[in-house]
């Protein structure tokens, strides 16, 4: 990563009369869109030659940090390595050129791949069927809840309008429930970080006939396995509800435990987490939804075709590369890496729940709170040392959450290097707190003014230019 800001916008490199394209000559004769159907003014797009465009985006990329740049311990995001062979096969022209309306007999290979991937996901999760229509994790959650809603409706069970969500859940869980027309009932966590089963029992006793489903991620967002899951599932099933598994944290379960066996009925998988497809700066992902036998007829129509097909291809290439021989090692190694980092740092960072974790764990900031150095400061200082920051201020259970997920691909040297820097920052917090509080220093830009951005929104180049005039 280049530590100097490049900073240009493509519009600022534009010169009238330059062109970055070449197109065939019109051989069709004079056909022109009638004037009355035309826009009044051309869209003001940049005019650049090809090399200018290539350099511009190359320079921009140099101000970006990816998994290939360095360690990316962003909790809950499973920033694992994105194998290069996956990219190559997904770009094969005989897949890329398929129109989604093409008849099935001309797309046999593409359809066979969907079948193989479905089979693999069923094996790994213990569920019976998958739909690939959902484009992302949040889209998968919504699809899963719609499935559950369709199921209850089919039984004439229309009074079930509530979904139970633990207070440690990802923000998308309650939001997806609301978009699906559900009311959210929150249950608390115990001091050990797992769901308060007594609180849950109270909710079920009081509101059982209104409960459509319970959404859980297991291990939860603290990286802790909800060991009372069989009891929880029994309770929800007992009141007529279904169990929804948020697959965001599926990675440590490969080789260890399957959501279907835990008692879940419906789940989504983030292929861009557990199955190594790149996050792409925030998409495209893929959020296939799996269901237990008997629920497939309730899967909704949430996108026109096969979802993000090219992303699915990458996930299948990953599964093939690992095979049944190695895929079961993903969970244990991811879990080992997380526990190793946790144990190596818990004397200087506050570990609110000291137990074995799965793929990730959460510190509540520095142990020594007297320095005034916050989780935000630690995160920003990490950037100076060439690491991406962990997830910060989530989950909401602690004030100074610092959520670390190393993934199975990271070597002991990488983890040791990270541990060393985290310890160094803890020392700096005592000896040189100002350096930490004003970090980062060695990045293309310093801390940004978020308030200015929100109070006085400038969201387009046109607004920026109007501003300057």
């Amino acid at each position, binding site marked *: 990563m280049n530590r100097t800001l490049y900073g240009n916008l493509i519009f600022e490199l534009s010169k009238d009369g330059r062109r970055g394209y070449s197109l065939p000559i019109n051989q069709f004769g004079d056909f022109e869109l009638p004037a009355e159907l035309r826009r009044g003014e051309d869209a003001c797009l940049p005019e650049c030659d090809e090399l200018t465009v290539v350099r511009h985006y190359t320079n921009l990329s140099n101000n970006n940090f990816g998994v290939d740049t360095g360690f990316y311990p962003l909790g809950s995001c499973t920033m694992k390595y994105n194998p290069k062979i996956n990219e190559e096969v997904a770009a094969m022209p005989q897949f890329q050129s398929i129109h989604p309306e093409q008849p099935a007999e001309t797309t046999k290979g593409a359809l066979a791949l969907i079948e193989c991937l479905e089979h693999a996901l069923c094996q790994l999760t213990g569920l019976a069927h998958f739909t690939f229509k959902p484009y992302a994790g949040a889209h998968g959650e919504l699809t899963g809840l719609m499935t559950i809603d369709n199921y209850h409706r089919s039984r004439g069970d229309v009074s079930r309008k509530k979904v139970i969500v633990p207070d440690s859940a990802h923000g998308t869980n309650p939001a997806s429930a609301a978009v699906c027309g559900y009311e959210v009932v929150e249950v608390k966590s115990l001091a050990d970080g797992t769901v308060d089963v007594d609180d849950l029992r109270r909710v079920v006793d009081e509101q059982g006939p209104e409960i459509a489903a319970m959404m859980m991620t297991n291990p939860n967002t603290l990286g802790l396995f909800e060991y009372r899951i069989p009891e929880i599932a029994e309770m929800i099933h007992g009141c007529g509800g279904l169990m929804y598994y948020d697959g965001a944290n599926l990675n440590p379960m490969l080789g260890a435990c399957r959501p279907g066996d835990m008692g879940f009925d419906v789940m989504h998988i983030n292929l861009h987490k557990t199955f190594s497809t790149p996050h792409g700066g925030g998409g495209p992902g893929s959020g296939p939804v799996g269901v237990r036998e008997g629920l497939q007829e309730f899967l909704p129509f949430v996108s026109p075709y096969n979802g993000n097909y090219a992303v699915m291809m990458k996930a299948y290439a990953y599964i093939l590369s690992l095979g049944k021989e190695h895929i079961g090692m993903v969970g244990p190694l991811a879990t080992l890496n997380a526990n190793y980092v946790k144990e190596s740092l818990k004397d200087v960072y506050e570990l609110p729940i000291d137990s074995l974790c799965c793929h990730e764990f959460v510190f509540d900031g520095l142990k020594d709170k007297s320095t005034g150095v916050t989780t935000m400061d630690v995160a920003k200082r990490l950037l100076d040392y060439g690491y991406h920051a962990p997830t910060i201020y989530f989950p909401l259970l602690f004030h100074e959450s610092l959520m670390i997920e190393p993934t199975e691909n990271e070597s002991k040297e990488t983890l040791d290097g990270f541990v060393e820097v985290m310890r160094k920052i803890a020392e700096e917090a005592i000896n040189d707190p100002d350096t930490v509080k004003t970090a980062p220093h060695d990045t293309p830009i310093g*801390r940004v003014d978020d308030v200015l*951005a929100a109070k006085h929104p400038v969201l387009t180049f046109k607004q920026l230019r109007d501003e300057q005039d």
Partner: protein
Amino acid sequence: MSFKYFPHTEEELQSMLEKSGVDSLDGLYAQIPESIRFKGEYDLPSERCEMEVRALFQRLADENQQLTCFAGFGAYDHYTPSVIPNLLSRSEFLTSYTPYQAEISQGTLHYIFEYQSMMAELTGMDISNASMYDGATATAEAMMMAVAAGKKVNKVLVSEGINPKTMDVVRTYALHKGIDVVAVPLKDGVTDLDAVRQNLSEGGVAGVIVQQPNVLGIIEDFSGFADACHGQKALFVVNSVAADLALLKTPAEWGADIAVGDAQSLGIPLQFGGPYLGYMCTTEKLMRKMPGRIVGMTRDNRGQRAFVLTLQAREQHIRRQKATSNICSNQSLMALFVTVYLSLMGKEGLKEAANLSYAGAHYLCQRLTETGRFRLAFDKPFFNEFFVRYDGDADALYQRFIDAGMLGGVRYEDGFIFAVTEKRTKQEIDNLVKIAAL
């Protein structure tokens, strides 16, 4: 256990286990009840080396038939300049996450700002979000946004001019959210304004959704629509094929409050349905009602211009169940795709590609109707897609096209909806006509 994606040596494994306070990998899972531990073997293929993975995909690839594409119906076979896949494969873009840490994500934040600027230009609207999944889900989000922006209204009018698959997605979202979708029929191939007015006058309408060009390829005249909507405090939502906006009157010119659609037509490969790119643009007035990520300009503490995710108080990770949308990620890499595409094409190239597509489609239509077997279903202007009725066995002809290596449009009623892009040569079109005329 040694494997190319796992760096742990046996020695390291032991020392790490020790540090973790367990004596085996199994011990790490002590908290999982025995009864639900997975003990079996997955019924999965054996590991493949890289050569074998490549060969297996090649075998599957060979089972797909590559067809010369004359189909559209929401997904268009436009040309992808070679610069784009090259730049998209830069792993600093590809392997990064959502740009939460602005200090090391200026690359992503810059291009999203450029993307927002370009989409706002293309649609004529004030602002854009950082992108959505696809055109269909963006339309469903627009519906929810209209309902959230209104006061105690939960009815949305949707023209039957929108793609039926978009309609199905919209209906799915509406069913669960409790929104009442009323379909407005087409009259002579275009949305019936009288029916829109009639429905609006009954009250309770949050928004009216139309598509341009519509599902039959017809360029609709939306004069009077925005006024009719605004007179009843409803929002006017226009779903457009992004590439066609190079030439067509913009959603803003039609008075739209929300412009949505799919930007796949800006050079994104067909790839069996995805990933594509949904876009959403709106007015400054509705800015805080818009779902999805938004990037804004600000300053850093060194006085430099910088870009950052902003207006996050709208979003699910802050508002949880009170957010109007559950959308979390965007389709960032596809937004980069479109940004590079529009940078290369510029305003002239985009118009030129649109003109070529327009000309090719009109040439094909003319040639087909000259055969005497086809007639344009409606005497209405179209862009690069059109619906023709056929006086023979359309299914048989569709198969003949395939046998000749062509995807002869999309079968529709007693005929075909054909689409042409700048990729189709005169020879390819003449070949199609030759088969059609048999």
